[in-house]
């Protein structure tokens, strides 16, 4: 059964220095509040996994939390580069980070395989791509029935996955709705999981085949109202496309970024 914890306590308990962490959300439902809590608690040497590391991972990287990033598309969606990611990769600020990159299909299958308890994902991929030459975790197997050569990647099995969702009921069962991404897979694949939600309700009011993650498959549920902003929560609030555009300016410069972090993340703790 999921335990109801404050976001502070959930992050303190489950995100250890050196851990492999997946904060998921495919544009939608990105767990910004939880990411900021990880920054505030100055977690270090994290291996950050995420299909689309957007500005939350840019912030974590710039804040010095990351040792390694495993990803398949690292940009500010519709805007451009992740300047903090680039600065770390290209110039080693605040320190050098390792990257391991995949395609979306590979990572989506790797999350699926992780949720399915398998050590590997098999798919038809990476044909003609040079990514296998820079990622030694991409291998190929031969189908024993047809002889076809298929790609294989290790499944994703994070120490802890963190996702945001619409709501939980009082037992800690969680409803995810809209663009569900790989969030359920991330939770099921992980040793521990934290789900932040907009609210706790008496009844999820879910339809028969809704994406509901049962309480007993989650470690901790924490309320984080507007916890996905500047990303969005379907049915609650929209995406701040404006902030995503502004981020391009904020993140371009180390000082502006550091100032922003001070004002909006570190100092937010004092008000919490």
């Amino acid at each position, binding site marked *: 059964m999921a335990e109801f914890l404050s976001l502070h306590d959930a992050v303190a308990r489950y995100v250890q220095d050196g851990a492999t962490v997946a904060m998921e959300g*495919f*544009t*939608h439902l990105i767990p910004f509040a939880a990411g900021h809590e990880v920054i505030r608690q100055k977690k270090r040497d994290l291996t950050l996994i995420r*299909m*689309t590391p957007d500005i939350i991972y840019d912030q974590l990287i710039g804040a010095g939390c990351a040792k390694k990033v495993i*990803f*398949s*598309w*690292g*940009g500010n*969606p*519709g*805007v451009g*580069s*992740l300047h903090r*990611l*680039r600065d770390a*990769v*290209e110039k080693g600020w605040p320190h050098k980070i390792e990257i391991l*990159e*995949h*395609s*979306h*299909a590979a990572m*989506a*299958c790797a*999350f*699926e395989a992780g949720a399915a308890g398998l050590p590997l994902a098999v*798919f*038809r*991929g*990476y*044909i*003609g*791509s*040079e*990514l296998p030459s*820079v990622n030694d975790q991409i291998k190929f197997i031969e189908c024993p029935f047809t002889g*076809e050569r298929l790609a294989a990647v290790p499944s994703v099995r994070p120490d802890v996955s963190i996702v945001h969702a619409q709501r939980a009921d009082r037992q800690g069962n969680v409803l995810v709705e*809209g*663009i*569900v*991404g*790989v969030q*359920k*897979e991330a939770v099921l694949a992980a040793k521990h999981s934290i789900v932040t939600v907009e609210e706790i309700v008496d009844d999820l009011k879910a339809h028969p085949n809704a*994406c509901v993650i049962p309480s007993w498959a989650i470690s901790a549920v924490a309320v984080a109202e507007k916890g996905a902003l500047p990303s*969005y929560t*379907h049915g609650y609030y*929209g*995406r*701040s*496309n*404006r902030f*995503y*555009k502004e981020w391009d300016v904020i993140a371009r410069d180390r000082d502006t970024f550091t100032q922003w972090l001070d004002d909006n993340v570190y100092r937010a703790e004092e008000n919490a």
Partner: protein
Amino acid sequence: MSLEYTASEMMSVTAARALENGTTCFVGIGLPSEAANLARLTHAPDVVLIYESGTLQTKPDILPLSIGDGELCESALTTVAVPEMFRYWLQGGKVNVGFLGTAQIDRFANLNTTLIGDYKAPKVRLPGGGGAPEIATNAGEVFITLKHSKRAFVKDVDFVTTLGFGRDGKGRDNVPNIGKGPTRVITDLCVMKPDPETKELMVVSLHPGVTREEVMDATGWEVRFADQLESTPEPSEKELEILRELKARTERAHTGE
């Protein structure tokens, strides 16, 4: 005709026209998304648009800024999990056309969205592969649209993120269960198609007012022109009107909160 239009508009309209009505199209964000939605709002009302965020058969009223804007889900027939999207819908062979953009493209239509320079010490780190590597091989065929420039159109890409026809043009030969690959590239200057034999991209159609020299100057290899070089038809008034309205609606929506 003496309609006023920009080279960008010419590109979008031409890219849109490439999509036949009824086609199932896996749409990349940015220019492909603009073209695909313009197609849907003009000659191809039954084109089926799929975005990798899991949104199936979506009909956004404004162009999404990101691949997972709420608009895509709200106007979709249904929204599936991302693993399902890549497994059942793309790899499962349900996509006729993959519509992609890119940072770099070479003469064999290989795409680079990984980095400029050397992998270990990149000059510019780009966002990475995303959905493209498997869209390009699992879709029936691939359309590519991007602005023409010498930086983008290079003889050999720094890194093959996504297969066109390989570094020697033979990258799809004898590969089972693979799509036809890039069948056309639409730029702001021209339309290119692979040579049926060598698979090298050649110019098959010049946009109105564009010269061979302009294309040559903007292409990083000695680009060839088809014997029967065509002139791309101009945008219609209606296409321009719909495109401009779409972009204005989008602009208004994205500058709000």
